[in-house]
């Protein structure tokens, strides 16, 4: 495993907080510490580390560096500063240095700092309080061991040049993993084109600073940074997922690994590294999940029964003692069970309210065309006539249908049904109708690779069939005991699978060639000097995937399964956001509404042209 984000966060934690326990250091040198963070690093810290972890390492205060003027002077404390090297944060730090509140400072930066800024800091540090300056590279959030998101909170969205911010974040990811990659991006996306060239520039110019030189000296194949655009796969976020983590996100929403439960009004943290049950079950489908959970509960029951207080009366004192020492563990366990029970019951509630068993099946049937066109239309009409099904779910189905079998008259028919107040409540909004009409055209151009065969429905089944066989043969080690292919709710595999397959192997199937040709390649100087120029078409081992426009947990699961089934490959996926269907629909409405205006506004046209030139 050469790409493991959990290890990254662990190593950085060590770097940040662990006391350098030299034998020579006397006791008086050990001091408690304050942690100063800025608004960018706060989520990074809070997602990776718990409060108790920090307390264990003698971090007794955490403050925002923006508030430095309000701090008390505490010379007994040392200070750890962990900031993103933005102008504001550096400015606050300079103020702090002019008037230091604490004894000694260790400065950590979560991305590269420019020489000028470093000089400014050196000038400001006239009391010589800083005794360590280290760049660690973590300008991104780690959600799972293989899933990251770029830190796109509002400050970045409002930034003057969001692409630069984005590329900086990605560069920090590359640096933290010590990878100097080939960049491949989907050439039909303008945004990706800009982003990739920005990254390339960053890598090449940074190599003057020796940051990117020699990073993959020991790996035989150069790593790959794969930039994808959500536009090219608008379907995946629309489809109702059936695995644990995805379902939590779909129905309850995970924000920075925190789920807010509506019913009990409490917040639940999900953390792969600290929650064993979650780690084992996050990728399980709903059926397996409930089974696993039952086992978990039974196990707990068994253990508690063994040492429950009533039973203890008969047992001797030493047993009692043993049990009491175990008591905190039991408490933790029961809390954990309660947490997952809440989550699962909420999910279950949502599924039954929304009629999702039926809808989910139809979604899979439509998108993978498991039935005849006729039968599918039949089923879809039935569901549209069902007043219990919510409007958004109906819209999702019609969208999927329209992308599979484009037929204007049928679509009109469906829209008519949707507008019927007898069966649909509430009625679809204008933008929803507009989306239904435009969806196909909006994404048609980006969808050619996969739809080319899918329009004539005969080929379609074949393509999917072929794909399955492909996967089978490629990962045949574990496929034999893999029940997922039989599960009707998990028929659909995201397009990412095809893309990755075409890159990881050299099988020359038609679709693989089509996908490969849709990707453009940029090679940094450091890579080409190491491997020569003829590396573009070799199969790859380490892939860092970035989905512009938002990644889904479903794709993270796919990536997890791929790398589980073949230990030779290492995959990490991320995006600027983690989508669920609700967020994606909202995004779609916005895009439809945007696309109605252009042409009339010359300013946007101009900007587009400029972008084109760029």
């Amino acid at each position, binding site marked *: 495993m050469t790409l493991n984000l959990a*290890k990254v966060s662990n190593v950085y934690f060590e770097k940040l907080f662990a006391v350098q326990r030299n034998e020579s250091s006397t006791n008086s040198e050990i001091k408690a510490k304050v942690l100063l963070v800025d608004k960018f690093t706060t989520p990074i810290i809070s997602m990776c580390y718990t409060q108790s972890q920090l307390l264990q390492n003698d971090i007794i205060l955490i403050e925002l560096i923006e508030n430095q003027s309000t701090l008390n002077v505490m010379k007994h404390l040392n200070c750890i500063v962990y900031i993103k090297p933005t102008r504001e944060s550096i400015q606050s730090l300079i103020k702090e240095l002019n008037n230091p509140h604490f004894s000694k400072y260790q400065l950590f930066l979560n991305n590269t700092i420019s020489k000028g800024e470093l000089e400014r800091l050196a000038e400001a540090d006239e009391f010589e309080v*800083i005794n360590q300056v280290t760049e660690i*590279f973590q300008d991104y959030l780690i959600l799972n061991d293989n899933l990251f998101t770029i830190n796109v909170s509002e400050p970045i969205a409002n930034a003057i040049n969001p692409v630069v911010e984005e590329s900086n974040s990605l560069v920090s990811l590359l640096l933290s993993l010590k990878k100097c990659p080939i960049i491949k991006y989907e050439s039909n996306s303008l945004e990706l084109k800009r982003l990739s060239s920005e990254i390339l520039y960053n890598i090449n110019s940074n190599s003057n600073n020796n940051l990117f030189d020699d990073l993959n000296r020991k790996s035989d194949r150069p790593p790959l940074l794969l930039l994808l655009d959500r536009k090219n796969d608008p379907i995946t976020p629309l489809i109702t997922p059936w695995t644990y983590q995805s379902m939590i996100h779909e129905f309850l929403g995970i924000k920075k690994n925190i789920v807010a439960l509506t019913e009990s009004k409490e917040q639940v943290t999900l953390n792969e590294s600290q929650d064993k049950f979650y780690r084992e079950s996050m990728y399980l489908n709903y059926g397996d999940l409930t089974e696993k959970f039952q086992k978990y509960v039974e196990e707990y029951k068994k253990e508690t029964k063994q040492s429950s207080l009533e039973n203890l009366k008969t047992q001797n004192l030493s047993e009692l003692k043993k049990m009491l020492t175990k008591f905190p563990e039991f408490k933790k366990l029961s809390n954990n069970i309660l947490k997952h029970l809440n989550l699962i019951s909420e999910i279950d509630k949502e599924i039954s309210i929304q009629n999702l068993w039926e809808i989910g099946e139809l979604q899979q049937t439509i998108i993978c065309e498991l039935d005849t066109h006729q039968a599918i239309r039949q089923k879809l009409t039935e569901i549209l006539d069902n007043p219990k099904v919510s409007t958004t779910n109906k819209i999702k189905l019609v969208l999927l249908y329209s992308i599979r079998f484009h037929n204007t008259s049928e679509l009109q028919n469906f829209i008519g049904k949707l507008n019927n107040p007898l069966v649909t409540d509430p009625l679809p909004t204008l933008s929803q109708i507009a989306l239904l009409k435009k969806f196909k055209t909006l994404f048609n151009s980006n969808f050619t690779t996969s739809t080319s065969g899918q329009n004539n429905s005969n080929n379609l089944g074949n393509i999917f069939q072929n794909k399955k066989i492909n996967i089978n043969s490629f990962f045949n080690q574990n496929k034999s005991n893999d029940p997922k292919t039989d599960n009707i709710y998990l028929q659909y595999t995201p397009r990412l699978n095809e893309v990755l397959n075409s890159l990881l192997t050299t099988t020359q199937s038609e679709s693989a060639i089509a996908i490969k040709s849709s990707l453009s390649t940029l090679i940094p100087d450091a890579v080409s000097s190491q491997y020569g120029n003829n590396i573009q078409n070799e199969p790859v081992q380490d892939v860092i995937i970035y989905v512009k426009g938002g990644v889904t947990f479903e794709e993270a699961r796919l990536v997890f399964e791929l790398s589980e089934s073949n230990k030779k490959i290492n995959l990490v996926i991320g995006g600027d956001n983690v989508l669920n269907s609700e967020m994606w629909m909202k995004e779609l409405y916005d895009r439809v509404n945007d696309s109605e205006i252009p042409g009339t506004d010359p300013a946007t046209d101009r900007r587009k042209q400029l972008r084109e030139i760029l």
Partner: protein
Amino acid sequence: MANQHSRPTQRRNLGSPFKSPEAIAKMSKSQNSNMTTSSTLQTPDNVKSVQYEASPTPVRHTAVKSLAPSSQYEEVPVADPTKQTDSLTCPICSEHMLTLSQLNQHIDDAHQEKEMETDSSNAANNLSNGGTSVGRLLGTNDVKRWFSGKSENQRKTPQKRKTISLDMLDDERGFSFSDNGDGFRESPVSSRVTSPLPNSGNSPYSKHKRITRTHWKHPSTTPLCSIRDCGKTLNVKNGIVNCRKCGLLFCNEHTQYRVKLKNSEDVEKEPPVYNSTFEGTWSKCCCDCYYSKPDLAVGTQVNSRDLTSQFAKKRQELLDDKQLARVKVQKRFIKLADLLAETSFHERNESKTLWGAIQKTLIDSKSEAEKEIIGYDNWQSDKEATNCTICFVRFNIVIRRHHCRLCGNIVCDDPYGARKSCSIVVPLSKLLEKLHNLNYSRLVKDNLKTLLHEDSIKFRCCVDCKNSLLYDWKLLHLRTPKQNETEIFLIYNAILAQKHQISQLLPKYAKHIDTTSDEEESYTNRLRIKIMTFLKDFENLTTQFRGRFFISENNKLLVIDDFAADSRLITNIYQSSIMFLQDNLIWYKQLNDKHKEIEQQRLKQSLEERAKEETPEVPRLTKKQIRELREQLMVMNEQKFLVENMIMESTKARRFEELSSLEQNKRELDMTIENLETELGEFGF
């Protein structure tokens, strides 16, 4: 050689080394590819190496040349039928083979190395005989031939075959006859980069390019796959594959891996080394070699960059400059203070008499003197300055120019701090109060008390000068913390010290429990007690902390009002100590339990041993004899024990002079004990 000559046809087909062996080995491959078109393959690369290997042997060269094409297309069909029907045996080691391709594989794997050696030695001989000039000439000829040969062969090689071969390779599945695979993965780049070099066709080069096989293991010696848990016998079905890196033999399943390799410096003796650049050649290897590749062995590498030294260097430069400026400002301040004191006294003395006239001259002389302190050159002229030197605001009627009396720069007046409060009028007394022990002039020192209470003496200085003047005072002042915190941290630092001790000792204890032997027993026990006291102290301190800063109200702990401002700090400290205590107490107890268990086990063991020793009784010696001997032995043992204790003590007390005699004693005792024991034999304890 003579023996081989007797069976020419067979030899040729089997690729035996009577011609340039390397070339024939390759040829046999190409023959093979002709016969079984789909399973093996031929690329220009392969053909090229035919020419390569042959080149250093000038005598044979023509023969090979003529042979190469003909053997491919003519000889094979003739020999084919006979060969297929006969059972195949290797002509060198006479091992039985099933198919011809298998035999080829075998010859390549098992015998090629020797042939290569003889070949190269021959080549060396030839070269030395022929003289250097001939060799060079031949070299150039070779290159030409190579080029022509290459194009020829390219024409001849059917296009179709190439694609098939590539597909199979890319599959990354193993073949039992996969030897050919080596050449294909050589990236075109490497050949392109190196081939234009003159004389590159010489044998050292080709050796450099081809991964060495000197370290390969012979199949007959190890019939099992070298992966420990695999246990497969190596045969045609499971595959017999040498890992190119370590040379051991593996089955197909464990050699589905590829790494880039390059020959080591000493090709003959050392196995190839990993090389990830374009110089490396893709080669098959076993899974062990794959996963112990440096990058995979390390796993996820995490990067960080330490800028401390860079930062510190920069800071030092800037600090030196600042220090210089501070000294300068301080000196000027001393002079200025003197001047101001002097003029003020002067003023006071003479104000009543010659007030009007002198006032004017005094002011003039004062401003002159001020200029002199700073130096006329440093005193910025009004005309030059259009903007403030600190905030760069443009001067106008409202924003006036002012000279700083300590550096001479012109700055704006900003009494309300609207800009950066560039300059202020400072009372001398305030500064003197803070900087009372500077080396002032006699006048100032004598009148320090009066000056301290004199508020009317003021001068203007810029904010930079003020800061650098007060730097030392600030540094001093910053170090004095507040009362509340001192109290909190007094206890907390004690807690931290204990914590440090515990966290250092506990792992040691854990380690000792597992490894401990009888002698270390006492040490472990001491460690245990030590930790216990530390934990007790820690607990006491924590309760003390709680008692000092918290009051309990309705079963809830609240920070007492005096420390309300620091409540967050206090609760955090308390929490962290409680957490630490809980975690470590549990751990400590677990360790203790384990320790006890081990101790008991050991006790039991020794008891059992003793019991065992006591059981057998066969009367070899009379009972009386035995009893006597035993008594003797017991006494001796006891004495030995005593002596041992004494030795221990004296070593501990470092009384080394006694040691030698004690050791002597012990040796003697040992001897007698041994004698007694042998005499007792099975009747011993």
